[in-house]
């Protein structure tokens, strides 16, 4: 049925669903399977390749994409997301280097078999940021104590401030 055509977006589906309540049910199924665009890009969300990397990371972290699972080909994802092949290629290369996915020539791309799943992935991320903090602080000639006290201050500020979700550009 046309509704499930990969190239048909939510807009088309929604138009279909306006006619009868019965079809509304189809929409919920459609959404449960997350539809064609499993990744949603934002034009103001920073570099497109970075958004793809971040979202795939999240998918792996929450277990939506599991180790060994086949993921869309570069060209297919580019078509689905309406972004250039080169952008998706760059995201995939970056994820390969990070050990998140493997690409087998002629076979496709897969989530790496030994991928660090769940919280571990985010822990790696935090460590990366902390290393960056340490490096920057040292370059600027800060003492160890000063760096630590700044981190403490940041923690205090996070506790006091209402939690506003960061834009995805800044997160990860």
């Amino acid at each position, binding site marked *: 049925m046309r509704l499930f055509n990969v*190239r048909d977006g939510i807009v088309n589906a929604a138009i279909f669903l306006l006619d009868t309540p019965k079809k509304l049910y189809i929409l919920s199924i459609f959404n449960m399977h997350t539809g064609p665009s499993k990744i949603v890009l934002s034009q103001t969300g*920073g570099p497109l390749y970075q958004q793809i990397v971040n979202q795939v990371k999240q998918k792996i972290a929450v277990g939506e994409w599991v180790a060994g699972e086949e993921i869309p080909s570069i060209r297919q994802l580019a078509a689905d997301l309406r972004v250039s092949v*080169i952008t998706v290629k760059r995201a995939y290369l970056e994820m390969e280097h990070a050990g998140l996915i493997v690409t087998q020539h002629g076979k496709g791309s897969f989530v790496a078999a030994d991928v660090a799943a769940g919280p571990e992935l985010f822990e790696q991320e935090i460590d990366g940021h902390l290393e960056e903090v340490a490096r920057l602080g040292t370059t600027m000639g800060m003492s160890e104590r000063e760096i630590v006290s700044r981190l403490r201050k940041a923690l205090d500020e996070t506790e006091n401030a209402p939690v506003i979700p960061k834009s995805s550009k800044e997160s990860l």
Partner: protein
Amino acid sequence: MNNLSIQMEGVSKRYPHFFLDSISLELREGSVLGFIGANGAGKSTTIRILMGLVRQDAGSVQVLGHSMPAEQTAAKLDIGFVSEDMRLYGAATLRWHMSFVASMYPRWDQAYADTLLRRFDLKPEQKIKGLSHGQRVKAALLLALARQPRLLILDEPTTGLDPVARREVLGELMSVLTDEGRTIFFSSHNTLEVEQISDHIAFIDRGRLIALDEKEDLLDRWRRVRLMVPPNAAVPQLPGVVEVAGTERLPVLTTSQFDPAVVSLCQNRGVTVEAVDSMTLEEIFVANVQSRRELQPA
């Protein structure tokens, strides 16, 4: 993948008030080139030469392995061309145009054409003269896409389209690219969509190609660097700076050759790097054009 769909070398064309100055560019099969230029920069002239509609004064043009304009008949079998000034017959319906085009091109895909009719929200029984500008553009695109040409040459394909139609059109263009043997060359004023779907970017200004790069490289190399300069320090010489704005104490440099080493270079001179901002394709284009025009006034 290494076949060249388009190869232009030293292509020049002189008009009384315009000179297309030895354009050289290559486009590999399976990729998308976004061609950006201001009004009157030479986009349409370049495209007309590519299509064999205008003969270049000098230089060689190969399209799908055919030399243009000499072998344009053979080349055009495999090129889908849409431009703003393309005319369809006003008194005929879209369906008439579909069967007309289908009769000439053996690779015409009727099922795909029907799908496009729905997706582009077009009515085949409607006469062309009753269509809005946007509908005409979509009709022309449909006629080009359903032929399944190996190369699409599109002159401003989304100008005048509403946001929903534009998204549909871009979606169709990208789905063409799932076939590695097909290539797209398109010009646009809309830098946002060029940034989105192009693998390669070409900037043209006043008849000259001023940039031709992989998109990701281009976006990576251009940065705005915000500095804080203490009274006794001076900004070090940085590579590729095309513009210095802001104030003496708080300058903002635009560079076309950003390197992370810039940060430590500044710090060694006592200058603080406040921020390194990436730029949109539009900002890059404007900065590029302006800096060149300043160096070389018309």
